[in-house]
């Protein structure tokens, strides 16, 4: 086995040194009746070339070569090549959690820079590195608000990513945390009147997403005012980090729970991604996850260490702020390098391109289908209502090696034949025009009533 650095003679010599005759003696502590006396029924040992072939084949069966208009929490942005060159260095890739600060300064300083940039971008004072993803970060941020306020109930915007809502519901089930959902209005934003009605003296947190699941930018200032008036904390989830380049961050929030996938992390069929919690300094002791601080060694030289570990499970056990241990460190490094590459000016220009592509696409789609929620500002996503079922529309696109918007029926049946479309800097005008053409064709066919195609099943 090519990963094992021992010859049969080495093994013999080692057994002899231990004073054993055979390797079986090492497993004597396992009761004989449970020992496995056969081969595992798993694929036989494969050569490296066979493994590569296997995964190349899987890649071909996995949408390779398709142009996609999907977003909804996983965004296709260009990843500068230096991200992979740098994270592939064994000193980053194969390092352990930086508990031993003296020989982990590389990881620690890079995390410190990551935290600093996240604070700059979010307008917060402290940021951790990291949480599993945006959905668990949002759930943990809400639980943080519950601890801080001593209250238990939570108001969640229906315009929050539906799967984030599901995750929060799972986390909240056994914590005795009642969840109330507040709907969205005609403009796609959280309905403030409904929010006002849902908040009580027991509300610990209001959780909204900005830009929200529909790509619409929420009125965070107004939401914060309502939440704070009732003594509740405002937790804002950010799923599309690139928006921070051109959209004001939710500075009025008390906690920001972010998904940083857009910053240089491959979509990778849903993970691994990078969740982050950012908040005010005064709340740091209730913040879960690892935190790096700056300090000095005995010679006065600057150095970095994991700090405030007393919040964490290895010290506090059942009284910890969270059970999180392993996080998404290497992904945070990808995010860090991405933020460094684009920096102060690049992030803004990048966000502007996303905005321009989306504005163009929404304008084109509006000529043929109905684009919802146009009266509030949006970033890179928009909802298109069609006459035809969106699965059928997507069936038309798939034939052109295109994946259309995400059909919303599953999550928002009240929106009818609606789909969530997304554009980034990677979306070309040609692709937009082709997709718009196919949607127009779908609209024409429904109106003329001639074509009775049922492509729904194929497109699912």
């Amino acid at each position, binding site marked *: 086995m090519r990963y094992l650095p021992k010859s049969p003679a080495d093994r013999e010599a080692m057994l002899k040194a231990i004073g054993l005759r055979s390797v079986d003696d090492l497993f004597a502590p396992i009761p004989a009746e449970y020992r496995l006396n056969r081969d595992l029924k*798993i694929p036989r040992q494969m050569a490296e070339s066979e493994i590569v072939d296997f995964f190349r084949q899987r890649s071909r069966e996995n949408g390779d070569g398709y142009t996609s208009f999907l977003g909804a929490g996983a965004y296709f942005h260009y990843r500068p090549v230096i991200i992979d060159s740098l994270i592939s260095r064994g000193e980053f890739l194969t390092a*352990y959690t930086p508990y031993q600060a*003296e020989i982990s300064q590389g990881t620690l300083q890079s995390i410190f820079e990551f935290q600093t940039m996240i604070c700059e971008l979010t307008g917060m004072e402290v940021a951790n590195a990291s949480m599993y993803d945006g959905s*668990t970060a949002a759930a943990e941020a809400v639980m943080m608000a519950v601890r801080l306020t001593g209250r238990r109930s939570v108001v969640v915007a229906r315009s929050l990513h539906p799967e984030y809502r599901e995750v929060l519901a799972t986390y909240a089930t056994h914590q005795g945390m009642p969840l109330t959902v507040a709907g969205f209005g005609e403009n796609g934003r959280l309905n403030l009147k409904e929010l006002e009605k849902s908040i009580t003296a027991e509300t610990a947190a209001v959780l909204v997403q900005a830009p929200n699941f529909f790509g619409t930018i929420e009125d965070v200032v107004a939401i914060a005012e309502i939440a704070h008036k009732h003594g509740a904390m405002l937790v804002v989830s950010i799923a599309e980090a690139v928006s921070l380049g051109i959209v004001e961050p939710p500075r009025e929030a008390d906690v920001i729970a972010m998904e940083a996938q857009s910053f240089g992390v491959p979509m990778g069929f849903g993970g691994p991604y990078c969740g982050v919690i950012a908040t005010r300094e005064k709340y740091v002791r209730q913040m879960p996850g690892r935190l790096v601080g700056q300090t000095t060694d005995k010679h006065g030289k600057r150095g970095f260490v994991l700090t405030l570990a007393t919040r964490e499970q290895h010290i506090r056990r059942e009284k910890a702020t969270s059970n999180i241990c392993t996080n998404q460190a290497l992904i945070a490094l990808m995010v860090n390098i991405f933020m460094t590459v684009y920096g102060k000016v690049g992030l803004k220009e990048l966000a502007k391109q996303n905005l321009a592509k989306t504005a163009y696409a929404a304008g084109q789609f509006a000529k043929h289908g109905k684009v919802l929620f146009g009266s509030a500002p949006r970033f890179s996503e928009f909802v298109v209502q069609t006459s035809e079922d969106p699965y059928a529309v997507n069936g038309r696109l798939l034939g052109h090696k295109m994946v259309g918007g995400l059909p919303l029926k599953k999550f928002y049946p009240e929106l009818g034949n609606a789909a969530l479309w997304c554009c980034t800097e990677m979306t070309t005008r040609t692709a937009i025009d082709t997709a718009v053409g196919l949607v127009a064709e779908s609209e024409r066919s429904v109106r003329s009533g001639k074509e009775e195609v049922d492509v729904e099943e194929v497109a699912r």
Partner: protein
Amino acid sequence: MKRMTRKATRHVNQNEGLIFEKSSAGKAAWKLPSLDVPEVDTAALLGGVERKDLGNMPEVSEIEIIRHFTRLSTWNYAIDLGMYPLGSCTMKYNPRVNEAVARVEGIANGHPYQPERISQGALLILKTLSECLLEITGMDAITLQPAAGAHGEMTGLLMVRAYHQSQGNARKKILIPDSAHGTNPATAAMVNYAVENLKSDSRGMVDIGALEAQMNEDVAALMLTNPNTLGIFEQNIHKIADILHAKGGLLYMDGANMNALVGKVRPGDFGVDVMHLNLHKTFSTPHGGGGPGSGPVAIKKPLEPFLPRPVVVTKTDGTLGFDYDRPQSVGRVRAFYGNFGMFVRALAYIQANGPDGLRQTTEDAVLNANYIRKGLEGTYHLPYSTPTMHEVVFSDKLQAKKGVRTMDIAKRLIDYGFHPYTTAFPLIVPGALMIEPTESESKEELDLFVEAMKSIAEEVEEDPQGGQEACFAVETHRLNC
């Protein structure tokens, strides 16, 4: 430093400031393609929410970024540089083919919501890995959704709770041995179970008498690490399972130490009802300075209805798909399907090994730990004489007499070119030195380690003051926390 070591030497070690200190307006490492749609008036589109300034974000060039991170990287210890004797952490070699296949276009760029028809590749990876892990663990069903070990623990306990609820009583507490990892009690608290400590006997195993006395209808489950954090296989495992099952409780196994068992014995065969695996330990996915991990949870049949949504199924037409219609599910624990990139790597590792390779891996891991144990026995105090598997726990009892504690020895080890072992854990051994070499170490590297540990012990005898601090070859010295 009085002694010369055969492994560590002085090495070029450059200073490197913060990236912000290199920033200067007008430098750039990016270039966007020219815009193929009309420019937009951002003020008109966004109005009051337009962001004007990004604060102190850096402006640097590409070469500066490459040098910055390359220099930083040289301050890290890593598996690629040498052994990580960290107990229960299983810091094994991270095969490079894993990284290569995770970056193949259709795998790296698959969107989680792309239609199932064009996701068959990803779905087959999920299915194949699931089948392999079920065969390895001897369990009946599995979810790959949890993002790390602790997340898997939470998912497992959620299923335990749902199972008991379906039986009419969710029960109140979880029994956790005093040798357990800190995530176990922290997790129980997140699922709103009370934690009750279970003490170990003089051999370092679960005290069967205590378990019998503490087990009753209020206990939902026992969370057991097997082999435990002392590296000891719980020889009475069947009895433990029987005691739990007799009172309707479940046996949860923390799979942190699965590297001692793969291909040799299956938890499903010795009475485990729920367990999580750590793909970033046993199945070679990189630790990356703290993550990402992946914590699949495998279960026995009675718990299957409670698996997180969605699960992968084979549809009537033979293609693969996701089943969301799971009315008894505990719900989602994460958006999408889990840390998919880690599944790709773990499957590549299983394929590279096959059944024979996985068994040899386990044998070598246990051989290595016992070789170290034999080499250091006598030099360091061994609090439990019970045979151990893939790791061994010493204590600093002998060195403490001279005022040198486990942390001092661990830091000194850095000078000898090794990452420290795990200090002060498990909690039942005062001044613990917890050592797990994994299968990835050659006899030569193990000999160097034993030599280094013996040399430190001699230093302690000769000059207890001198051996207390890492001297050089590190970027910074012991830091003020």
